[in-house]
């Protein structure tokens, strides 16, 4: 009985993760392609995707290494891009915090934007799920995503050497990021956070070691948090 419900949770997770295949294939290929363009070997490129599995952070690290930024700055900036994973981890804790340690460790390695979004939406909708069902659903959701991330990184890396400069692939990263960010602008606070971050990052373009990114990110986060407080206060005053 228990095993069949966990199994069906796993398969409904697979179904929920499946649409993301369309995003993962081009995104992973692009990373493989750009990494080999930047001079990485096929083994290095594939290791990058297997060890890190974080698209945006990998692109950031790659970009900064191409620009010859110091190693510490590369790490700090890429981890700053990945800070949202800590947010995801925080938000998953009430649902899966009591799972066995090895399962939480596996889930941590497999936490990506897609698996997080799919899993939390399901946990909120179905509060009666048991812990094994939740874990089954989570691992189901990553099944169509993560193996394809590895596989198409490899495909992109193998194709990489044949792609000419005139394809303007340098600009694929900005376009991909803008496309990913746009649906996240849910509230005024999100919009203000982004605008402040953009303005500060342009003003700080001359700051050495690419530290402008960190300064801009922190400024944007502070702006977002302040607007959120202000909006909540306004709403509270209006309802009085």
């Amino acid at each position, binding site marked *: 009985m228990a095993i069949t419900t966990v199994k069906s949770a796993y398969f409904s997770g697979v179904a929920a993760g499946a649409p993301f295949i369309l*995003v993962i294939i081009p995104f992973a290929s692009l990373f493989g392609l750009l990494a080999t363009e930047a*001079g*990485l070997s096929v083994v*290095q490129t594939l290791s990058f995707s297997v060890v890190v599995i*974080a698209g945006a*952070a990998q692109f*950031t*690290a790659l970009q900064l*290494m191409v*620009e010859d930024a110091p190693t510490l700055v*590369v*790490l700090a900036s*890429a*981890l*700053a*891009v*990945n800070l*949202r994973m*800590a*947010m995801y*981890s*925080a938000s*998953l*804790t*009430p649902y899966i*915090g009591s799972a066995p340690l090895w399962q939480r460790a596996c*889930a*941590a*390695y497999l936490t990506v934007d897609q698996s997080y979004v799919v899993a939390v939406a399901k946990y909120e909708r179905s509060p009666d799920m048991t812990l094994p069902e939740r874990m089954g659903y989570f691992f189901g959701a990553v099944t169509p995503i993560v193996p394809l991330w590895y596989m198409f990184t490899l495909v992109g890396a193998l194709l990489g050497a044949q792609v000419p400069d005139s394809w*303007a692939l*340098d*600009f*694929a*990263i*900005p*376009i*991909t*990021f*803008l*496309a*990913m*960010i*746009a*649906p*996240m*602008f849910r509230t005024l*606070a*999100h919009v203000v956070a*982004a605008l402040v*971050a*953009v303005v500060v*990052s*342009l003003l700080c*373009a001359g700051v050495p070691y690419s530290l402008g990114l960190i300064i*801009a990110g922190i400024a*944007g*986060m502070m702006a*977002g*948090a302040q607007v*959120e407080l202000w909006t909540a206060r306004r709403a509270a005053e209006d309802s009085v």
Partner: protein
Amino acid sequence: MIDPVTLWTVIIGLGLGSFFLRFVFTGLVGNRAMPDWLLRHLRYTAVAILPALVAPQVLWPAATGGETDPARLAAAVAALTVGLLTKNVIAAMLSGGFTLYGLLYLLG
């Protein structure tokens, strides 16, 4: 060319660091509560960091030696606009891509 020692340092460091970020709350905090102010800031991480990263590349692309490029600028605007209107990541990526190639072709 990227130095192999730097590269492997980055791959391993980023792997460990990313794992730590993903594990820090589920693994180490468990069910203890986190301060509101911290959560409030963390909520805006993605929408602050990613635009900050992209903005200089949009205005001053390295591929054109830092000269503002109409095709790249238009492609960025197209991707952002379509993403905002449709909330569809793939549609936004394709719009940006088609705009970029269309204008690069037209402007030669």
